[in-house]
């Protein structure tokens, strides 16, 4: 392959500079700062800080509340990822079969994509409002006294539901385009080879969607871990007391409510390592193994 080159060495660096500056200001600098302050114990009133080495980390390791939140985050992530992928796949497969009015149908399904997470959370609040929320009413009608923000399990359920609802359209778009990139003739060949549409889906369609699926798996895990902050914040109404929260929300609560900058920084460093691991996993395993053409 012919490689295009620059006449001088400085031009490419100059062109890269704005992007590098943005990454440096908004990621590297805060990240370095977080790593640094995770080794310090900060005075709550900002009068000074003292070096404590790994104390912030060892404290987290022995903290039962942190362990509880970590477990909840894991469960939350698994549920959100599973249901938003499964629902989106189901909708995409059904939408793919629609011929008449396909465009209107697809646009409606993608619409939720445009809703910002806090707004999604707020809509959730309205839907689960204890005195008149339609979903709370529905729960009541089957004998479930739904108490958002009071009962741990109920709040967690609402959190999962709203997060899934918010993520389904993104997955839907990817799955639909993945389905449409499967050659028509391959599906027709399957139509002649297998009578059952169930078998055709699992033997032919699903494996061919696997690259899309793995990509979305990573995207969804990241979403559930980090991007649900807005949803969580609105649903727990700033009263994290007994309510469920995710690790990211805990960083915020400890750092900005509890003024424990050191402990909060240590938590964010742990999360950074987690993201790094996920990214490495994606690059190493997924992109290399799931490849057909």
């Amino acid at each position: 392959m012919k490689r295009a080159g620059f006449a001088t060495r400085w031009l490419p660096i100059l062109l890269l500079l704005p992007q590098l500056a943005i990454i440096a200001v908004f990621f590297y600098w805060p990240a370095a700062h977080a790593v640094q302050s995770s080794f310090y114990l900060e005075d709550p009133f900002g009068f000074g800080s003292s070096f404590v080495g790994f104390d912030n980390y060892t404290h987290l390791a022995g903290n039962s509340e942190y362990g509880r939140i970590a477990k909840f985050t894991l469960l939350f992530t698994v549920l959100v990822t599973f249901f938003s992928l499964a629902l989106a796949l189901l909708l995409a497969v059904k939408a793919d079969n629609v011929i008449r009015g396909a465009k209107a149908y697809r646009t409606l399904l993608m619409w939720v994509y445009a809703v910002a997470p806090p707004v999604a959370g707020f809509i959730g609040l309205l839907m689960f409002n204890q005195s008149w929320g339609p979903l709370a009413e529905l729960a009541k009608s089957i004998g479930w006294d739904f108490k958002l923000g009071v009962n741990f399990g109920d709040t967690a359920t609402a959190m999962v539901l709203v997060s899934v609802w918010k993520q389904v359209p993104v997955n839907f778009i990817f799955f639909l385009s993945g389905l449409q990139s499967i050659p028509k003739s391959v599906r027709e060949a399957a139509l002649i080879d297998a009578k059952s549409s169930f078998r055709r889906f699992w033997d032919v369609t699903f494996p061919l969607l696997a690259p899309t699926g793995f990509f979305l798996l990573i995207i969804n895990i990241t979403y559930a871990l980090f991007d649900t902050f807005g949803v969580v914040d609105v649903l727990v109404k700033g009263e994290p007391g007994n309510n469920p929260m995710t690790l990211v929300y805990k960083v915020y609560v400890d750092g900005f409510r509890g003024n424990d900058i050191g402990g909060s920084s240590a938590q964010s460093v742990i999360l950074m390592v987690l993201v790094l691991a996920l990214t490495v996993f994606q690059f190493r395993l997924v992109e290399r193994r799931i490849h057909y053409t």
Partner: protein
Amino acid sequence: MAQVSLKNIRKVYPNGYEAVVPTSFNIADGEFVVLVGPSGCGKSTLLRMIAGLEDITVGELSIGDRNVNHVDPADRDIAMVFQNYALYPHMTVRKNIGYGLKNRKTAASDIEAKVQDAAKMLNLTEFLDRKPSQLSGGQRQRVAMGRAVVRDPALFLFDEPLSNLDAKLRHQMRIEIKALQRRLGVTSIYVTHDQVEAMTMADRIIVLNTGRIEQIGTPTEIYHRPASTFVASFMGAPPMNLLNAESADGRVHLGGDMSVAASTADGPVIWGIRPEDIEIDPTGDIPFTVDIVEELGAHRLLHGQLNGQDLTIHVSKDVVVSAGPIRISINLDAVVLFNPETGLAL
């Protein structure tokens, strides 16, 4: 093994476009029928209706003694070879070939034996564990064939299976497919736009144009007795020469002293002659001027004008000709007359 019968099969798309006008024909058990025509003539639609991949708007389709209008493609006892092979990219060659059998509740040991047989027949044995992406075009084509033959269906359907191959491979696969069909004796319907494929492979050819059948016949009939000017110019390379003339007193005057009898009213008429039914003849009646000599190795094509109309003559490689005036004679038995308005043979 089965005969196929189409009774007034018609296809109208939801937007009102009539892709196939009511069409009827029968295919005998073990026959190799080629549907040929230009793109958009409805040949693929017809094949896809037989396969069950398109709904039949009106008409009756039977395979064997069974009406299959509303039978699932998987239950029609057919196998289809697609233009782009349509192999399952995530399955090995072995699984690709065996997939149809697996879904028909065949025992695993039977599947393996049948896959081995098919692979042996198609020289694929060493590739059984490869994925389609690791095969060449010709090998993929063979896998697609393997997937069809392993099921031992009542009917093979081919949808332009060779058009993605290069010329040399296409020639080789043409012979292989024909030989395989002969050996297995399975009724086959083969769609192509390539008239050479149609001529060389078919027991019978069905020529289609704009959704209707122009002619059904053996390659010889189609070639020598075209039913319309469309068939005359579509089949054969170079195509049949078609020239305008006048019919008077029951005869059509071709040139020089030559004329043929015509059982038509006086008036304009089109006469056709295949390029190889014209000879260079120093004592011939018709003067002809050669403009261009096309050298094709095994033979030569002479292009020129007769009565101000284009004419092509096919001569063997032993006949040396250069541009300039010559005299020709026409094999009168080979002349076909057409109605200039309907294009149909008289």
